[in-house]
């Protein structure tokens, strides 16, 4: 499904050699992605002095490309500060892009503004992490849920009231809650209100920014199953942003593992957990605290995790992960790896799978050393 993800990124590298891509495309010729992001960039200026001269940039999102297909849940996982929230907000057009393009439902929405952007908002909604701060404490639940309907001028007054009742039912809240204020609700209930508000205008695409991480586990499970039910019922497509790999494993169809502004690995959830290709994914997986012994067996053999996310203002040269990597070799701080499709729908960014950078990598290697190249078809 994701066969054509890095079109602009990895060029015609190894994929055209394998022929798998073409085959894969032929299977599902008609499905067009709902959201298609190409080389998305979002830089924050670092300012200095009284006149706020920009000195340098923090590349929060740096050339990310992916597709999300209708009805699918695409998850972005990564540690704090890797740019996953920025990515979500940029895709939802809450932030201006620095570069790249976002195509939504066949329409280029990268530079929309005014009326057209407002129109887009009917189809793209966001649920935020902490419902206590995303709901206005001075408005009643009814008004909170109704606000998007007012903004987009949906239906008559009576119809809107009716719709609020329907939405409360959809998120399993009793109707009398419409008169309450957010502070009279528990965390889980507040998050349900936030979800009701997001689906009020019948969007096609919802960005879920850590929707459960502010909640207790027993409530988390409820919210997850609610989101799951809503997805089936209303035909929603989700971009789920999370740091919790066990959650993502169970909810997402495809997963992008993000590190310092870019994807290190993109795969469907099965592939990612059974056969992680990127060393960063291996480290993440081996660090999950699990609760069952048979879960332990699913984790890759314990890898010693080293260091912390570097300062995004001065990212390391070459591969951004190289200072922490347990499979690091000489070329890693010199050559920047690209996303390479190793098996259908499974991409990794690592010089162990160099793709088109093969020549460059070989030049930096001392004699007698070779690299694996799963995509190049070399048998091990």
């Amino acid at each position, binding site marked *: 499904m994701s066969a054509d993800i890095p079109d602009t990124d990895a060029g015609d590298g190894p994929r055209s050699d394998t022929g798998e891509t073409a085959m894969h495309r032929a299977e599902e010729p008609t499905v067009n992605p709902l959201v298609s992001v190409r080389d998305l960039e979002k830089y924050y200026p670092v300012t200095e002095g009284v006149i706020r001269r920009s000195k340098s940039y923090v590349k929060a999102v740096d050339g990310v490309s992916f597709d999300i297909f209708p009805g699918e849940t695409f998850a972005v996982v990564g540690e704090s500060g890797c740019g996953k929230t920025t990515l979500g907000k940029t895709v939802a057009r809450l932030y201006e892009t620095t570069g790249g393009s976002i195509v939504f439902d066949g329409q280029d929405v990268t530079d929309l503004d005014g009326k057209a952007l407002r129109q887009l908002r009917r189809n793209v909604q966001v649920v935020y992490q902490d419902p206590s701060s995303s709901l206005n404490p001075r408005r009643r639940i009814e008004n909170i849920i109704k606000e998007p309907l007012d903004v987009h001028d949906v239906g008559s007054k009576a119809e809107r009231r009716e719709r609020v009742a329907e939405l409360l039912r959809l998120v399993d809240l009793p109707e009398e809650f419409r008169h309450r204020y957010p502070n009279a609700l528990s965390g889980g209930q507040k998050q*349900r209100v936030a979800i009701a508000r997001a689906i009020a205008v019948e969007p096609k695409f919802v960005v879920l920014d850590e929707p459960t991480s502010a909640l207790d*586990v027993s409530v988390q499970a*409820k919210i997850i199953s609610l989101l799951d039910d809503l997805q089936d019922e209303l035909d929603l497509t989700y971009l789920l942003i999370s740091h919790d790999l*066990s959650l993502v494993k169970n909810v997402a169809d495809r997963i992008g593992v993000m590190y310092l502004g870019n994807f290190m690995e993109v795969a469907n959830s099965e592939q990612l957990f059974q056969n992680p290709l990127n060393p960063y994914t291996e480290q993440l997986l081996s660090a999950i*605290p699990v*609760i069952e012994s*048979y*879960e332990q067996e699913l984790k890759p053999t314990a890898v010693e*995790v080293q260091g*912390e996310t570097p300062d995004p203002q001065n990212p390391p040269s070459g591969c951004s992960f190289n200072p922490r990597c347990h499979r690091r070799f000489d070329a890693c701080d010199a050559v920047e790896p690209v996303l390479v499709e190793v098996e259908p729908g499974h991409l990794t960014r690592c010089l162990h799978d160099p793709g088109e950078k093969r020549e460059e990598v070989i030049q930096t290697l001392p004699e007698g050393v070779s690299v694996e190249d799963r995509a190049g078809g070399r048998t091990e």
Partner: protein
Amino acid sequence: MTRPLLDVSGLSVSFDTYEGRHDVLNGVDLTVDEGETVALVGETGCGKSVTARSIMGTLPRPPGDITAGEIHYDGTNLLSDKGAHERVKGDEMSMIFQDPMTYLSPVYPVGSMMADVATYSGGKNASWWDVLKNLLGRRENNAEIRERSIELLDRMRIPDPEGALDRYPVELSGGMRQRVIIAMALINNPEFLIADEPTTALDVTVQNQILDLLRERVEERNLSMLYITHNLGVAREIADRICIMYAGEIVEVGRTKEIFDDPLHPYTRGLLDSIPKLTGFDGTGIDGQIPDYTDPPSGCRFHPRCPAAMEGTCDVDPVDEYQVGGNRAVACHLYDDGMGFDEAEAIASDEATYQDDDEQRPAEVGAGGDT
């Protein structure tokens, strides 16, 4: 079994607020043996931190009020003797906090804070002259403290420990700050550590490193530790024994493996069910929410959310802790004191299960108290 190092029995704590009296802790029993790590696991607002603060003697009083119970540390009754509490707290206990940024001062370098902890902890008498001298950096044993700090930071695998002493907390990353906090807790060679969610604010990869370090240090010095967390996965990695807490009561105690393999209390079972696992996830969560402490449910505090609640029993009779199959303790009316383990297991899997029942939809409303 020898006498436990820390023995909390029947601890009840209330808070007076303008909303009324909150009966938060309700007879908490807890023991930590020497060299043992015990995890106290529970959800937000269940009273984990209140328990820790009562043990540390840092409970704000008022509004807090210890209404009943005893805390014995190595035979000393801490609650009846304030002086002894101060002494024990300073000499033998240390606490690691959750969010290093709130516990480290932003205006002092790391080294200066470590030196202060080393000098003043335990409420040692210091004259204003000493304080002034210390402030001006003329501490008598400055060199010795500095050396000890460097060694500790080095042990915590902080790169360039000497340089780190002269840096301010903002200049360190989250994981490094947490390492500094742990080093600070260890500087006076405590015997007993209370760790209050030390890894919650950290990423998984960093969390893993911190847990490894903590475990190493604890083993190396044969420390006893009370580890407070809401994450069962973390508890499983670090603890020898686990106490599950719900609404101010300890509902189940057992060795780590037993708790995870055969949870008995319905709450523990629901909690374990709710966690998404790598192997799959079909949990439904637990209906309702933690009760209002101004008016806690009668009988078992968990009964309004419990799938196995028995009318006439669970909502009336307060629960005792029942010993089940040797060294398990569970506070639930489903079980009887001295019951064999197999029998208990059978009851647990028959009765205490959670099903996604669409009929009972407005789930979170059921348990009242949210006004």
